[in-house]
């Protein structure tokens, strides 16, 4: 109850500040959009289906890109964590690559894949693959060794050992990495969409900029934040909660 109250008070204050600054008219509305302007844009955008289409297109892309990342990242992470050679070579490279914003791949992606959806997907994968790989590697290392021993002892080997023992045993340790990978995938997607006529949210945002419609820019920004937050809050939170219940880890909230 108290928590909900704090939540309401904080956002009411934030909104109040926005209204106040907008009403004071310190800056013209094309520099500092008003809440009503943003609301109208949101309403209109959903009404003429622009936003619905943009959301559907962007979500589809991020889902494809993120799935590829998770699959590849798990294989790579498993490789890195089970071979000292790979860890010392590939592992180091992956860590250093992490300092590169994935949008830097855009020029190369354009040359390799052409001006197409695949170029966007490539940037999304490059954005989240590293987090997933490093999380998987880290998870395998943090996972108590006894699970692997017990599994092998009970007759699990090869793929069965991975699928039934090592993967579920390391899940609590990789879930935060999966979450981070999702956040990177989402950011990379929006960045790439802003550079290309793509129908996605990124392009809708750039179009608003081109028309100097700052209310629409803020409206799309709100959409991007909301979607990222919903996936994080609904999918990953419930996954974490599920794991915490099963493992008996005390929940932080």
């Amino acid at each position, binding site marked *: 109850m108290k928590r909900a109250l704090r939540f309401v008070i904080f956002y009411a204050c934030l909104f109040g500040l926005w209204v106040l600054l907008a009403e004071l008219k310190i800056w013209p509305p094309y520099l500092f959009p008003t809440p009503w302007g943003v609301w109208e844009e949101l309403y209109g955008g959903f009404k003429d289906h622009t936003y619905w289409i943009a959301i559907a297109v962007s979500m589809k892309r991020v889902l494809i890109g993120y799935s590829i990342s998770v699959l590849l990242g798990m294989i790579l992470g498993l490789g890195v*964590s*089970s*071979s*000292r050679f790979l860890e010392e070579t590939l592992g180091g490279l992956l860590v250093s690559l992490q300092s590169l914003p994935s949008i830097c791949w855009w020029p190369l992606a354009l040359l390799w894949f052409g001006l197409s959806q695949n170029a966007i997907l490539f940037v999304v994968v490059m954005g989240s693959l590293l987090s997933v790989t490093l999380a998987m590697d880290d998870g395998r290392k943090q996972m108590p*060794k*006894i*699970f*692997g*021993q*017990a*599994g*092998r*002892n*009970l*007759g*699990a*080997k090869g793929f*069965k*050992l991975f699928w*039934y*023992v*090592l993967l*579920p*045993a390391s*899940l609590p340790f990789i879930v935060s990495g999966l979450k981070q990978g999702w956040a990177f995938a989402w950011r990379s997607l929006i960045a790439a969409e802003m550079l290309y006529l793509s129908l996605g949210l990124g392009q809708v945002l750039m179009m608003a900029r081109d028309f100097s419609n700052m209310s629409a820019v803020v409206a799309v920004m709100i959409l991007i934040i909301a979607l990222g937050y919903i996936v994080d809050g609904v999918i990953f939170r419930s996954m974490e909660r599920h*794991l915490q*219940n*099963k*493992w*008996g880890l005390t929940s932080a909230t």
Partner: protein
Amino acid sequence: MSANAQNLPAQFPLPVTPSRSGNPGAKIAPASIGRPAQPGVSKVGLSDICLSYRTQRGERLLALDHINLQVKAGEFLCIVGPSGCGKSTLLHLIAGLHNQTSGQVLIDGKPVAGPGTDRIMIFQEHGLFPWLSVAENVGFGMKMKGIARAEREERVRYYLRLVHLGKFEKSYIHQLSGGMRQRVAIARALATEPDVLLMDEPFAALDAQTRDLLHDELERIWSETGRTIIFVTHNVREAIRLGDRIVLLTFRPGRVKRNFAVELPRPRHLEDPNVAQVAGEILADLREEINRSLEAEYNEGVKPKIDPNANEESRA
């Protein structure tokens, strides 16, 4: 044993009425009872087992030195020794979770390499899977073997009743007490119907009353199922309480120092003066090894760690 059943401490959660004679799941007899073993061949044979490893400082250290040991089918063997003598490591070798430097582990006279479900280990930290329910844990080995679901479920029920946890099928591991977890671990090990149970200080982390109860349970399960048990402990009284025979290992390198046959009638009790007397004899021998281990610890400042998992990653 039935005397103990009536004197259960009230706080211990026993889900099934402790009538140990009437066995509700008796229709499924464990498969390996009376499995014909070749006459004259021991169930488990260790021949000239040596294990050396490299310490962090780069020195080669001999952990186990020419261990020779024969364990008869159905025997309850206890291995005692000071910490660091390599008794747990020896169990890992028998389980095939780690490779010896030289020598052979023989089951029914045949050398084995790698893990096999004929030898199941029960760990001190139980090693149960927290992401699976109790029933799924117990059925795990059978699932790996590809046994059909219906039979698996029936056998899971049987073994959970055997350890008096029939009502906890759907619970998760963290919801159980330490003693219950070890009983699940025992059920999980038995469910794959191994010939040999390898127990690595399974009760060391439990409180005294729970341990007493589990001694009773283990003895009963052992006599009902006829399994061969190799039980590692640093607790001499526990070894005498349970074992037919006790093997004492020396401190670094681990060698077989002495074999004691325990001929006290069963069931034995930890407080029994006869147990105390035998314990006194063994402890006199053990004391010497413990002193050596303490001396080594003081002199070196740091105890070199025997790490049976050193190669875990590359072999997993």
